[in-house]
């Protein structure tokens, strides 16, 4: 049945994480924004926490069945979006820098064999998909993997890799057969220090500066044959690629919840300043009789609530084993876009306080922007939603 009242369990998760965000992330947020590329050593204490673990061991090829949450139990994904919102209320850049919680770890947890899990499960793993000539169109990547005896030889360049320097292993997307298109794309685990594998440079970014983003160059980099994730076979279908894309149905609500956290931080700060000025926000007056500032604020709060409900729905569906490709993209489309707009507007309402680095508002405006870009830009999300509701293929709606 429909019940959107927050349960005690959800409250407990939320307030526990909020304490952590308040006590540990907020105090160091500005420092690591100003010291880009410096490793936030305070995060070392999270190393032992298994964030990207998996419930049970499974054999190669067997689909992991999401555990249906029993009555009174909080589903893993719903729990995760609540945790992420709170942590990002603390700091998004630091969340992205959490050890052993990279996207690569998610990929390994999802598809690795037991033997691979044994070798890489405990290591911090980055995910390298994007190339200079291949962004949203990840089916067009050109990095090559060639089988040579018992080794794969990797060649290519990967950019915008999160945790590029800090990760111990990298999950590299490369094609084993360019003529096969998407069907030829596979992912490979490359360990740091492998000859031919180099961290070329670290980027300087608009926001989330606490997180290190870098470029990898692979030059005749040789890795063991069994470092491939999933099957090496090139099927005549794009099932494998679609499977990889399906991972995004799981991660998009997480990115949407990042936007929730940053946006709420900006709104909380703005509310505090509005109330300090003597205006009481009491949800009573007819919106037509409000000052422009009050009305803007209420509208932003409503949008944040809408972002959150769309995000929670996508996560809840995952917990219940429902296909959520449409809802995951809806959540990210809304949250990325409106998160950005709201953080910008908060700076405007805050006036000088919103432009000064004395406060975090300007930082939130820079940080939140990434949520409308990574894991599929807002435009890609709109394409996915539109194709879904129109019943169009990617050929019918480009």
């Amino acid at each position, binding site marked *: 049945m*429909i*019940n959107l009242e927050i*349960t005690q369990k959800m409250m407990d998760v939320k307030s526990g994480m909020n304490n952590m965000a308040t006590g540990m992330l907020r105090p160091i947020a500005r420092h690591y924004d100003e010291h880009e590329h410096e490793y936030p050593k305070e995060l070392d204490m999270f190393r032992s926490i298994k964030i990207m673990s998996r419930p049970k061991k499974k054999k190669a090829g067997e689909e992991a069945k999401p555990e249906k949450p029993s009555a*009174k139990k909080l589903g893993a994904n*719903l729990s995760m979006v609540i945790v992420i919102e709170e942590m990002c209320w603390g700091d998004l850049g630091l969340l992205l820098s959490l050890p052993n919680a990279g996207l690569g770890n998610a990929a390994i947890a999802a598809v690795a064999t037991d033997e691979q899990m044994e070798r890489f499960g405990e290591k911090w793993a980055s995910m390298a998909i994007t190339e200079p000539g291949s962004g949203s169109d990840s089916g067009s990547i050109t990095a090559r993997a060639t089988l040579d005896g018992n080794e794969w030889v990797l060649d290519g360049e990967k950019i915008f890799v999160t945790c590029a320097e800090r990760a111990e292993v990298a999950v590299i997307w490369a094609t084993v057969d360019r003529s096969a298109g998407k069907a030829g794309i596979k992912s490979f685990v490359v360990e740091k220090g492998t000859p031919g594998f180099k961290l070329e440079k670290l980027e300087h970014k608009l926001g989330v500066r606490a997180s290190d983003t870098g470029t990898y160059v692979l030059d005749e980099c040789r890795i063991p044959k069994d470092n491939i994730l999933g099957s090496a076979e090139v099927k005549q279908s794009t099932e494998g690629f679609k499977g990889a894309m399906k991972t995004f149905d799981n991660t998009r609500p997480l990115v949407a919840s990042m936007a929730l956290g940053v946006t709420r931080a900006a709104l909380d700060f703005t509310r505090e300043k509005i109330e300090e000025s003597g205006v009481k926000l009491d949800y009573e007056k007819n919106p037509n009789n409000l000052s422009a500032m009050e009305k803007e604020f209420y509208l932003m709060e409503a949008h944040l609530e809408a972002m959150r409900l769309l995000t929670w729905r996508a996560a809840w569906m995952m917990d219940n084993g429902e296909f959520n490709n449409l809802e995951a993209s809806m959540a990210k489309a809304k949250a990325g876009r409106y998160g950005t707009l709201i953080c910008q507007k908060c700076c405007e309402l805050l006036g000088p306080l919103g432009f000064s680095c004395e406060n975090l508002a300007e930082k939130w405006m820079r940080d939140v922007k990434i949520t409308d870009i990574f894991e599929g830009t807002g435009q890609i*999300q709109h*394409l996915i939603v*539109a*194709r879904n509701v129109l019943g169009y293929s990617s050929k019918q709606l*480009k």
Partner: protein
Amino acid sequence: MEDKDFGFGLSEEQSSMKDTVAKLIKSMVIGNPAHDMDEERKLHRDIIDKIWELGATVSMVPEEYGGYGMDYSPMMNAIFLEELAAGDMALAIAATLPSTFIYTILQMGTDEQKKKYLPLYCDPAYKTCTVAVNEPRFGFDAATLETKAAKNGEKYIINGKKCFVPMAKDSGHLLVAANADGKMDLFIVENGNPGLQIGEREKNLGLYALETYPVTLENCEVPADDRVGGDNGCDYGRFLQKTRIAMSAIGTGVSRASYEYAREYAKERVQFGEPIASRQAIAFMIAEMAYEVDAMRLMTWKATSALEAGREAKRESYLAKLYAGEMTMKLTDYGVQILGGHGFIRENPVERYYRNGRGITILEGMATV
């Protein structure tokens, strides 16, 4: 806090009610009937009767007052309203108008009021009663009324002007919102009271099919017993919360209608050799409509969940209505825009959704959950 499972799924009861109403609306309202009612400036009584026969309106009233004695569920009402409004907003208001009167008295009235008034309207046949909240003035706010009710012995003397009173002429009783010495309250006024004048039918931007009237109360005397809740009055704030949630459910329905019509049109309309939906400029508008309709619904459900748990929904209902109001304007505008010139022509329903949708932010107290 007692924990019920958190979740987005409809219960069996909710989805079967939703399907039943959707089916009725699809067969009797969408298309020509809704268009005709708008053009004729008149609702078709047979449709209202059919909706009334579903029993959803009085099902939650105890049997002793003429209902079916089912548990009160604002969620069922919210789902019901969205489905009706997806057919026609004027119809959604008219068909559920008695519930605004009935539920207010049932939940906030005295025992005597319940005994006296509920059986009149919890009847196998639809009988009209209405609510007068809106006032014809700049800066109107339902939370601070200018209509005054002054106590005079065993009576209240009510003075003031109301507008957008739906179906006032045919109504047996009106629930009039007035300021009683600084506290906003509701009074039961009989149609025919000499102090009550119902004016000429209003001409409005939207809701052509819904008769609305201006009402003037001039030294209108009502027995003190007819103050809803008795001497201390009622929880008017809660009344507003429930009507706000209802308006956001209706806004969701109107927006959904516009979205669905525009989406299908865009798939059929061919320009430059392909359906206009296959162009991103149009497709992205459709995508936005799709997730905003869902967002409006979830905001409505969120506020309704608070009521369902027996909690205040002040903040949630305020934000839900604010959101639904803004979004209904945006989405019904998109609907017209996607149809282009055809959207401006009254043959297509999107212009009606655009006019009706403007009412969500403006009209108060026209429906309840």
